[in-house]
């Protein structure tokens, strides 16, 4: 073997602690090393030229670079080697910066260590094999999980770029939480007015295939080539026949939560405008009698015999946009949410002031339908709460939507006395602070720095015990309506979806991005992208921006016909393999399969973690580029 060694100074980063000239000289002692050189910055153009010229001049068959971590410049140097005609996997990096120069002070010792690291790399390169990356085909179709504003925006952007998209939504209509909102801060745009055109676009776009009332059941495969099973839940209504006339809704005798019938369309602007039967409250499914909707339906669309249907489709990329829920308030008994009808959550208040909500937009108390004379908003219910019953993070949107609610209440009835109990008012965002100040200065909303300790129902009113921190005294009052800004958490389906996608989640159950600064819409798992609240609390503009960014990443992936795969994957030596399958058991990526007394690795799935090589009792499994022989040679060189 003809090896060339190149030692980088990295300015003073390496040179100040490691005697580069000395190790350059000493490495020539190895008979396989036919050339060695030092250079101030190997990653610079001049440095790369030095390497490529040496490969040609000395007819090198292996190269060792003594420089920074391979994370920094392995790709740079491998490209240079390939340019000179050397197989890029016959280039090794000895990390003498992060793992040597930066962590040592004694130059003599650091120099000896750098020499050892370089010798280990030389021992490894001697046993290297040329490797060739494989290719895998890209299925030019995307899947978006979740039909809220995040999923809608992502699906539209991908479809507009010309790629087919399947949008899966678990409820009967797309629109998500945004569809339930009355207005949006800080512009007070009507939420439905800006959302419904997008919903209609989704339904009518020729590239978008909408699966409502459906859930993802199984995900297999890898970036560029996922296979997904989607369960379409029985709607009990034939979507091809239904005209959305609503006759069935009028005929249904059931009155459930929010006056909802057993056969229902979530709201007037639902997309698709096709009802679904809630089999838990439907009299026919409960008692076997009724069928009034069927009689009322002229196009004969009602189908009580409908069953769940499963479809399987291939995708190149998947976007998770599973959204959020407000936390349950069972553990917050002191606010009396379950004990008093007039203690409600912010999302319930949103429905009360919404023209398409159950009260038709009339601001009335749930208990007696009267207009409240005083409304008390309580912030941070479960947010910024480090105890077991709460969430340690700030839910981010509550300060702003509460200011919006306070303004909405004052707009409807200026005489209502509105107060907000807060810990801190947080308004970072374009025109957010101005909006909050408007609530105080123009609408006269009373902001009280302090929290509520207890809410007690009393003679049809609510007595609150609070603290006014600026007065440093108790603030006890009688109010008519209490609105709780409950903390936000990932939707209950997020964990299941994350597991199916092998997408990591954080301590709070939010799907983690691959890098918090530089890869904010990618999951650590290749081919999986994130947007919206499933990734953390955020408002609508941020969600839309993130959705478009995720769509952009997906488009960038789908325009490729082939993906190159990393050749440093595991490989079975069939002569030594007994087919015990231990490797398949430990593989976290499902890349190893047992086939008739042997095993086979799917190179496209293998991430090169090496778990199988350690598990294999007969030494039949090897990681290409990191074979056991190579690693033992490295250890021998370090210890020798």
């Amino acid at each position, binding site marked *: 073997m003809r090896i060339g060694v190149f030692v980088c100074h990295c300015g003073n980063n390496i040179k100040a602690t490691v005697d580069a000239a000395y190790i350059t000289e000493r490495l020539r002692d190895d008979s396989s090393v036919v050339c060695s050189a030092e250079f101030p910055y190997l990653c610079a153009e001049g440095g790369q030229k030095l390497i490529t010229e040496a490969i040609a001049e000395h007819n090198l068959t292996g190269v060792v670079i003594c420089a920074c971590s391979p994370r920094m410049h392995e790709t740079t140097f491998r490209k240079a080697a390939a340019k000179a005609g050397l197989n890029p996997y016959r280039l090794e990096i000895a990390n003498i910066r992060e793992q040597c120069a930066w962590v040592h002070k004694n130059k003599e010792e650091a120099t000896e260590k750098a020499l050892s690291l370089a010798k280990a790399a030389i021992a490894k390169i001697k046993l290297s094999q040329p490797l060739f990356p494989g290719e895998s085909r890209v299925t030019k179709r995307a899947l978006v999980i979740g039909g809220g504003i995040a999923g809608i925006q992502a699906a539209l952007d991908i479809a507009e770029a010309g790629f087919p998209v399947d949008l899966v939504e678990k409820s009967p209509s797309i629109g998500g939480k945004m569809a339930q909102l009355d207005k949006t801060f800080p512009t007070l745009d009507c939420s439905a007015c800006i959302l419904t055109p997008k919903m209609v676009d989704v339904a009518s776009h020729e590239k978008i295939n909408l699966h409502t009332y459906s859930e993802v059941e199984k995900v297999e495969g890898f970036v560029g080539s996922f296979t997904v099973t989607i369960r379409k839940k029985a709607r009990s209504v034939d979507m091809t026949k239904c005209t959305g006339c609503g006759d069935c809704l009028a005929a249904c005798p059931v009155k459930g939560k929010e006056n909802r019938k057993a056969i229902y369309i979530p709201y007037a602007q639902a997309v698709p405008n096709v009802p679904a039967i809630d089999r838990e409250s439907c009299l026919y499914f409960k008692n076997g009698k009724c069928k009034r909707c069927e009689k009322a339906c002229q196009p004969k669309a009602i189908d009580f015999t409908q069953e769940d249907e499963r479809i399987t489709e291939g995708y190149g990329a998947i976007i998770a946009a599973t959204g959020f829920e407000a936390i349950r308030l069972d553990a917050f008994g002191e606010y009396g949410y379950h004990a008093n009808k007039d203690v409600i959550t912010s999302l319930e208040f949103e429905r009360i002031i919404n023209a398409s909500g159950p009260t038709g937009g009339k601001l009335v108390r749930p208990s007696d339908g009267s207009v409240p004379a005083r409304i008390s908003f309580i912030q941070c219910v479960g947010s910024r*709460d*480090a*105890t077991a019953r709460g969430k340690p993070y700030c839910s981010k949107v509550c300060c702003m939507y509460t200011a919006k609610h306070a303004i909405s209440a004052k707009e409807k009835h200026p005489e209502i006395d509105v107060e907000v109990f807060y810990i801190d008012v947080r308004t970072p965002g374009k025109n957010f602070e101005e909006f909050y100040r408007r609530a105080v200065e123009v609408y006269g909303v009373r902001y009280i720095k*302090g929290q509520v*300790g*207890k809410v007690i129902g009393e003679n049809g009113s609510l007595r609150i015990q609070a*603290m*006014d*921190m600026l007065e440093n005294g108790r603030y*006890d009052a009688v109010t008519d309506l209490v609105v709780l800004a409950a903390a936000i958490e990932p939707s209950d389906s997020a964990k299941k979806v994350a597991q199916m996608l092998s997408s990591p989640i954080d301590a709070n159950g939010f799907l983690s991005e691959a890098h918090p600064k530089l890869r904010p819409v990618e999951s650590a798992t290749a081919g999986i992208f994130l947007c919206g609240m499933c990734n953390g609390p955020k408002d609508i503009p941020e969600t839309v921006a993130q959705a478009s960014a995720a769509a952009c990443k997906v488009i960038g992936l789908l325009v490729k016909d082939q993906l190159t795969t990393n050749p440093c994957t595991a490989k079975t030596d069939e002569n030594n393999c007994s087919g015990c399958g231990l490797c398949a058991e430990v593989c976290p990526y499902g890349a190893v399969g047992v086939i008739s007394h042997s095993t086979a690795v799917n190179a496209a799935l293998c991430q090169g973690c090496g778990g199988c090589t350690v598990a294999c009792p007969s030494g039949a499994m090897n990681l290409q580029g990191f074979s056991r022989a190579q690693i033992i040679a490295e250890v021998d060189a370090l210890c020798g």
Partner: protein
Amino acid sequence: MMNNENRCMLCGRCSAACPMAARMDLPPHMWVYRTQRGDPSSVRKADAIWKCLSCLCCEARCPRGVKPAHVAEEARAGQGYILEDVMKRVDENMPQQLPVAALRKARG
């Protein structure tokens, strides 16, 4: 468990929950705040620490795991109103009210 006053973010939920706060010269959050600011002696001087019922409502409501009632407990002990024979018998299982009541009686 450590009573780390620095975890307090001054939300006031302890004082809002305290059944005696209205009768105190210094409400519970201020015990934590003063300790946080390095002034525990002013807590010892406050009459409020003798109004505390040790019901621990403040601690149950605190979103940050701070323990105002324990600050009062320490302040009472710091006053020197310790009946040695009572304190000797205090263990984890003894209800907090018991030694507190004993200390109140001792103070008259």
